[in-house]
């Protein structure tokens, strides 16, 4: 495979955000890095279907998102005739991911349905517009908006935030104290 240097640079430049997206989606660093690797392999194998001049990053995000969703569906099928081992996997995921100060948030995020989680991350962290997020997820703009809203209100419930003061520097400080 001959990789055009400009393609290589664009792909590499997208890796940090692809990893952040994958880790936020899956809650697991190792699984996320495998997802990113699979994404890069698929992208380079199908580079001819990328339209030059369009958003390379959005294209890569779409590939990663679809890989994650098909893996998720596959796992869910396994769970349905399984023995709850996937639930165990889910439970252990927050520990495997990096920083203790984000653990509470990450745990709450993992409890969101995947369609709400991906919409919230794309719009709230990756910096995509509602329109771009809709394109990446293959749904209507209005659907993305309502998923983001539901994700936000569910997170507020899960984190049992009663006032904005409950959820800020104090919590972060406590997390640091636990860490040291």
């Amino acid at each position: 495979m001959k990789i055009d240097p400009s393609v290589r640079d664009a792909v590499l430049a997208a890796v940090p955000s692809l990893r952040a997206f994958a880790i936020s989606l899956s809650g697991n660093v190792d699984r996320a890095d495998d997802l990113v690797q699979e994404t890069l392999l698929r992208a380079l194998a199908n580079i001819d279907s990328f339209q030059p001049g369009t958003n390379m990053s959005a294209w890569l995000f779409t590939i990663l998102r679809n890989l994650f969703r098909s893996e998720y569906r596959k796992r869910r099928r396994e769970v349905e005739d399984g023995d709850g081992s996937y639930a165990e996997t889910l439970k252990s995921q927050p520990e495997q991911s990096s920083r203790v100060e984000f653990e509470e948030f990450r745990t709450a995020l993992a409890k969101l349905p995947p369609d709400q989680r991906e919409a919230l991350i794309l719009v709230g962290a990756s910096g995509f517009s509602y329109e771009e997020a809709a394109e990446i997820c293959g749904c209507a703009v209005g659907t993305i908006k309502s998923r983001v809203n539901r994700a936000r209100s569910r997170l507020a419930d899960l984190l049992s935030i009663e006032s904005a003061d409950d959820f800020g520097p104090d919590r972060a400080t406590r997390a640091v104290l636990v860490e040291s």
Partner: protein
Amino acid sequence: MKRKPVRRGASSMNKAEFGPVHSEATLGREIQTKIGEQLRAMYDDVVGQGVPDRFVDLLRRLDKQDDGERQ
């Protein structure tokens, strides 16, 4: 079993007695701001880690396969 907190009668619900409270809408906005900040902090922490070597190596290996230098 947790007991339900006794609710004050509506007649004693005088706003002044609770001091300067945020309106629900303001509180909602503040909470949403905090959630947004947490989400971005978690995300940006990973972005800040840059490109791990395994991905640089992966692209280098793929590129080389074409030159017959498959390793």
